[in-house]
């Protein structure tokens, strides 16, 4: 189905006010933010104020920048209110925008056409009510967070990526399993269980992912709905301006440039989480990626892959800290899967969540984690892993119990890992170690 027709149908559904909520599922990079900005503009054009809920401050600021540009062009009088916690220093990219007001107090933003904040901040706003709300990254939001702010609005558009990480809790309890309002579930899961008749739309085209990623990402993480890449195979190209030297690091980068994927496989070994060799391998890949001054072509437009267009990902925070230390002064984004959600880069390098592990826990098997790491790139994705993950998977099939009355989560993390790994093995470069 045509992407424009889907967007038109979503907006028609929303503005018809026939439903209290409209849900939009979006694969990675399918124009979610564009949809949010457009919906906000269309609601604002009717003269009604709208509240926007995002999950992290980065997401809020990204949206503020885009809203500011869109509203500056279409509705010059409209003010975008950025509600923040007290003591929040607005980042530079927001500071200069004339149609944006930043405040910690909702009352000071009463005149704003669009008011935007994180869910955590919205939970503390009292005594204000909006007819319209847009909830961005709604699959990342835990349902108890939605409970806290749902009485602030009448109707809402919920936008999110069902393939990404589920919200989580440090508490391990089966107490609420199967309840329609299980607070451990995502906001959308609870919303749809309590309101099964709400319309659910799907954005069909990923504008971010290259053609080389379409097949495997869609097969592994969106097995029933699927999506297609907006770019044909010849429209994206990654090229290095500096020559390769002999060695596995450059061989892996060349493979990634050629095919869009590379797996740099280290010798099998059980390691601690901050596996020094794997960290060094990720760092070396990233440094070479910067040194070799890649050029990324998208359609007719070629740009250098500067460090800010590169992301390095890992599953755990201590791994991220170790990677940051190893990368020192290379100004690339290094973060956990949780915090890379919703971000976009030209090239990503990540440490496989199961690398060097002796067991595969539910955390490490979670499909969403792998999906985030494997779907941030416009050009290529390089994975570093210890050998032996296939065997590890075979020894640890998912053993999570199935609970009565609880919708089964798809895709299954174990199956997604197998699919992904089978694909990566076709792009494997074996490292002999340091």
């Amino acid at each position: 189905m045509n992407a424009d027709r889907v967007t038109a149908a979503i907006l028609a559904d929303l503005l018809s006010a026939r439903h209290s909520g409209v849900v939009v599922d979006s694969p990675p990079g399918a124009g979610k933010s564009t949809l949010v900005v457009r919906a906000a503009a269309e609601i604002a054009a009717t003269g009604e104020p709208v509240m926007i809920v995002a999950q992290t401050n980065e997401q809020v600021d990204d949206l503020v920048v885009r809203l500011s540009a869109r509203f500056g062009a279409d509705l010059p009088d409209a003010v975008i209110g950025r509600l923040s916690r007290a003591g929040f220093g607005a980042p530079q990219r927001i500071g200069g925008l004339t149609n944006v007001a930043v405040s910690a107090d909702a009352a000071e933003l009463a005149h704003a056409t669009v008011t935007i904040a994180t869910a955590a901040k919205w939970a503390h706003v009292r005594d204000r009510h909006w007819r319209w709300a847009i909830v961005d990254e709604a699959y990342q939001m835990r349902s108890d967070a939605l409970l806290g702010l749902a009485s602030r609005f009448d109707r809402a558009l919920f936008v999110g990526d069902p393939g990404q990480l589920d919200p989580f809790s440090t508490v391990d309890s089966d107490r609420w399993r199967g309840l329609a309002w299980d607070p451990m579930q995502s906001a959308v899961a609870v919303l749809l269980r309590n309101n099964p008749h709400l319309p659910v739309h799907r954005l069909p085209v990923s504008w971010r992912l290259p053609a080389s990623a379409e097949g495997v990402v869609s097969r592994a993480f969106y097995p029933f709905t699927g999506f297609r890449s907006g770019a044909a195979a010849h429209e994206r190209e990654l090229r290095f301006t500096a020559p390769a030297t002999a060695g596995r690091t450059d061989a892996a980068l060349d493979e990634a440039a050629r095919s869009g994927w590379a797996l740099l496989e280290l010798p099998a070994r059980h390691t601690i989480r901050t596996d020094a060799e794997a960290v060094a391998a990720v760092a070396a890949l990233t440094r070479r990626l910067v040194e070799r001054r890649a050029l990324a072509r998208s359609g007719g437009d070629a740009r250098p892959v500067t460090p800010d267009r590169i992301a390095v990902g890992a599953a755990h925070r201590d791994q991220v800290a170790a990677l940051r230390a190893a990368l020192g002064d290379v100004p690339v984004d290094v973060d956990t899967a949780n915090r890379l959600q919703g971000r976009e880069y030209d090239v990503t390098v990540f440490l496989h969540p199961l690398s060097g592990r002796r067991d595969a826990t539910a955390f490490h098997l979670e499909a969403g984690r792998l999906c985030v790491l494997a779907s941030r790139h416009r050009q290529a994705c390089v994975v570093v892993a210890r050998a032996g993950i296939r065997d590890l998977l075979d020894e640890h099939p998912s053993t999570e119990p199935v609970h009565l009355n609880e919708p089964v989560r798809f895709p299954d993390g174990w199956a997604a890992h197998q699919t992904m790994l089978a694909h990566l093995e076709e792009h494997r470069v074996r490292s002999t170690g340091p």
Partner: protein
Amino acid sequence: MTAVVSFARVRAVKTGRAQPIATVRHVHLSPRPLVLVPLALAGEANAPLAAMVGTHPDDDRLLVVPQPRNRDLRFTFVADLADAVLPYVHSYCYDIEHVRGRDRFTGAPQVLVPNAAGVRFLALLGRSTRFRRTDGDYPVAPNVPLLGRWLTFLAERAETPGSAALLALTDALALHWASGQSPVEDQNLAAVLGWIDPPEGLSGADAARAAEDPSVWPPAGPTTDPGFDADVLVPAIRAYDRAVETAGPVAQRRARTAIEEVLRGQLEPTWRLMWRGLDLLRALPPGASVADRWAADRAAFTGFREHVVGGGPPQGRRDGAVASARRLNRLERQLDEYEAARAFDDPLVLAAHRVTGAAFAGTVVTVDRDRRVENANGTPVNRPLVTVATADPVHLGPGTEVVAVSRRNQTGTVQCVGSIVDKTHVTLELRGGMGRARVPPPGTVPDVGERLCYTSVLAGNVPAPPLPDTERTPWTHGGPPVPYEPPTEDGT
């Protein structure tokens, strides 16, 4: 499993004895706990079979259900159990202390069961009895639903991180010792105690292997040994059934006594193990925050007692949308507090955080004591800088808040982390604990050469987000709940 626990497990295998993973006791232990060893009938959902209960090793009380499939006998058993448990609970309802304008009992009941399955069994028993009616067609004794409510209270407390109101002994032991077996095997009380305190001349592994023989160490319940079920229990119950059908009261009593004797044989070894495990735990000195956590248990006990006495309804069958969100937020906060407090109490717990880079110990190398910066209002405030050199792997980013174990009233914010030769240098900006003077008084800022251990595992101080009232549950979560209408006929 933390690196410290993994390492201790390897050492346990190597040395043949469980290794300590705590230097202090992290659970409160009552001087007079109620030890309760329940047994259930195999193949029936939560059908009680027997229980051994008491507050002293020499004063055990054995309760049995001679025919566990007979519901009347089951409820007689529950009433007997209530006779044993409720006086114990009520014995703590006399001494009151006044704390911050509220009354709190100075003591509270503490129930100990052998393992996590025992906790689940009591939770289900509470659930199946707290709604029973004392009138109508199938009345039960008045203390049956009351016991159900107290068992439910205890089981809900057991979900609370750090609570000691209802403890599984295997869990409490696993918090302090690492055995050389898997966490699943650690649910076997006899095996765990074999690892921790093997009999003379045996290694822990041998003692644990011996503990797997059900004829020597019957399972600690609630599930019984299938061999015992088939060879001993079933014939005994059949004999009882025959006596009820055909014989007089004397023969019935004899058949019942026979069942009691075989079940006593199954329960007594576990009963002795319970007290032995308790003695091992008691030998450890309590951690500094244990008393605070027990005070929270006492406050919860006081609150629930007031609820019961005030005629409040039994706990609901399930949490509503608002109640579950509220409970989840509370549990998360309590878990954070518990994790932070445990690390402050115990250098071995802290060591696990030092391994992951969430905490570090080191020596102060430089101090900028007189540093002042302007706060958000433009007022100059003391913000000294200290740099700590450590050999630990530090994985903390700038902006992370840390607190030193020996200086709890002061927060440090990580400014930068760099490595010099073989040490990592962490520079912290300090805040708090310096009074209001222009220059921080001596001793309020660490000195050069002072050895400090900073941890980033802290309880967050972000207030819980406000949630709507139950009757204002929004449409996204199913709207306000419909009040429950009890069925008019009991049991239908």
